[in-house]
């Protein structure tokens, strides 16, 4: 990997709901092309951190940098310009329920490009075939299974060939096989698009399978307890909370990806 400037940097970030502090003084950076996992127990603020990074909620203190730009200090249009380069897969899929899959994937293309309708149609069919859903163009989200919906949402997330991909609990609600296939898909898409991937998850199997870098958030100490490749953390970490999480409470330092 080339030692280029980090794609995303988080500096001294504090997350809070009112006076209730979730996490404080988070500092980490995400390199170009990383698959970066934000892990931690339920309720530690993983998803909130993601919302700070994708512009849905300003942090209580601290900053998020995209390259050299201080994200939350930028004017609205500039923030939009950055976030347009990001594809986001929400926990529930968040496909627009009143539109077919084809319309869902086409909307960002219609909104941001001046392509001819036929070209858009071809692009949509191609993106859907990438996630194994060709032939489902005219289906509505409600007619699909949970796994298919997640994949369709992934097709929408990659509609504009994004530089950054954010995933909020991609394997939540999926059976182990679907979750593994989704991991595979994430890896392949990262390879081919060269995108920087940020994943919020607590699914150990997928953490070991795909992560190249990670941080561990803890709700008791309200800060990050570990940083680095999760496999390295597993071997070297001495913090009992992190070790407990990474070994599912067994304390055995072995990687199990299945």
């Amino acid at each position: 990997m080339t030692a280029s400037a980090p794609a995303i940097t988080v500096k001294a970030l504090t997350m809070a709901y009112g006076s209730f502090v979730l996490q404080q003084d988070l500092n980490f950076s995400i390199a170009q092309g990383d698959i970066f996992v934000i892990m931690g127990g339920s309720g530690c603020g993983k998803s909130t951190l993601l919302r700070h990074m994708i512009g849905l909620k300003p942090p209580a203190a601290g900053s998020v940098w995209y390259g050299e730009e201080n994200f939350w200090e930028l004017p609205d249009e500039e923030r939009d310009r950055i976030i347009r380069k990001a594809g986001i897969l929400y926990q529930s899929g968040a496909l627009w329920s009143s539109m077919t899959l084809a319309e869902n994937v086409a909307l960002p293309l219609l909104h941001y490009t001046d392509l001819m309708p036929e070209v858009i149609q071809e692009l949509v069919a191609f993106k859907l075939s990438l996630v194994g859903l060709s032939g489902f163009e005219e289906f509505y989200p409600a007619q699909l299974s949970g796994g298919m919906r997640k994949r369709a949402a992934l097709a929408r997330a990659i509609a504009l060939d994004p530089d950054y991909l954010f995933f909020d609990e991609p394997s939540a609600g999926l059976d182990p096989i679907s979750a593994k296939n989704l991991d595979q898909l994430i890896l392949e898409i990262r390879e081919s698009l060269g995108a920087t991937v940020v994943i919020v998850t607590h699914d150990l199997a997928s953490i070991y399978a795909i992560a190249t870098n990670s941080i561990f958030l803890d709700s008791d100490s309200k800060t990050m307890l570990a940083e680095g490749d999760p496999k390295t953390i597993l071997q070297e970490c001495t913090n009992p909370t992190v070790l407990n999480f990474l070994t599912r409470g067994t304390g055995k330092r072995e990687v199990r990806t299945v």
Partner: protein
Amino acid sequence: MLISVTQQPIFIIDQSQPGFLVVNLGGSWTLHTNPPAPAELLVAINNTVRSLTFASEQLEDWDTRLLIFLKTIISAARQQHIEINLTGLPPGAERLLSLAETVPEKSIYSKNVHDFLVTRIGRRAIDAYAQIREMAAFIGEIIIESRALLSGKSPFRARDFFYFVQACGAESLPIVSLIAVLVGVILSFVGAVQLQMFGAQIYVANLVGLGMVLEMGALMSGIIIAGRIGAAYAAQLGTMQVNEEIDALRTMGISPVGFLVLPRMLALMLMLPLLCIYADIMGILGGSVIGVTMLDLSLVEYLEQTRTTIHLSQCCQGLVKSAVFGVLIGFAGCLRGMQCGRSALAVGEATTSAVVTSIVLIVVSDSIITFIINS
């Protein structure tokens, strides 16, 4: 079929050795039987006792019912610092009791505490201020997006717009017809009783005509649409909020106001005045039915009287009102939907609140407009 006769649950206190309390459990201690109260036993647990043990040879069957009984006794014994021995209990019961006593996970969430009155008032005030700010921001976004729509830069989809036009226009006709006709009938009944005394029944046509055109047509169609469409808007947008669909739009740089709110509001602004005209006509027809059948007026006579009474300016007054109502209903429905929290309960609250807000806004704005026009 074998019918099992369950034995009554009982306990026997054995204090044959001084300082040792043995509780013999017998019978069936389940949720479907009626075990004795532990009062007698609690009296026996006093400072003369040093050790508490259990015997369960006679116990036939047990479930959580037994466990809560034991828990009462054990906590009473703890307070007296009595040594407790659980080995006489069924092994499952012993395990469950110790499981229930493991220290709870230390929680990062503080318990809900009851605040002082002043604190609560303060919180409410801060909430109210935040709500007003949110509302102002929403109005601002609507104005910005309307401007974008005029310059052709809005994500507005014509198909959505026509769908909403259909939903609040054509599909509302049956209910609007029913209500408007009945309102016409009611007005004409009320008037007929009084006017007949003076032999002036022809003026029922004036009463019904003016009543519908000036007031009731706009008001009734507004209230029906608030219940039918305002509620639907709040529920739709609220559910989209729960599903993160609105977040998905935002992060794609597509304004949810331009994409979701504007087509809904414009459909209402366009259709409510049309529905109002329709309701006016229906109300007048409803009134004429009473005029013809009960007041011995001919239909032509009745309609002619109506025609000479109503002026175009009066019709316009009703139309202006209904256009304002359309904006208000759309605004309240969409605002409540966009403010919705992330749970099924919140969607319900948003819907209710959309209807209540709409109706309050309709009635208040109606009185203001009427006051301005007539003064």
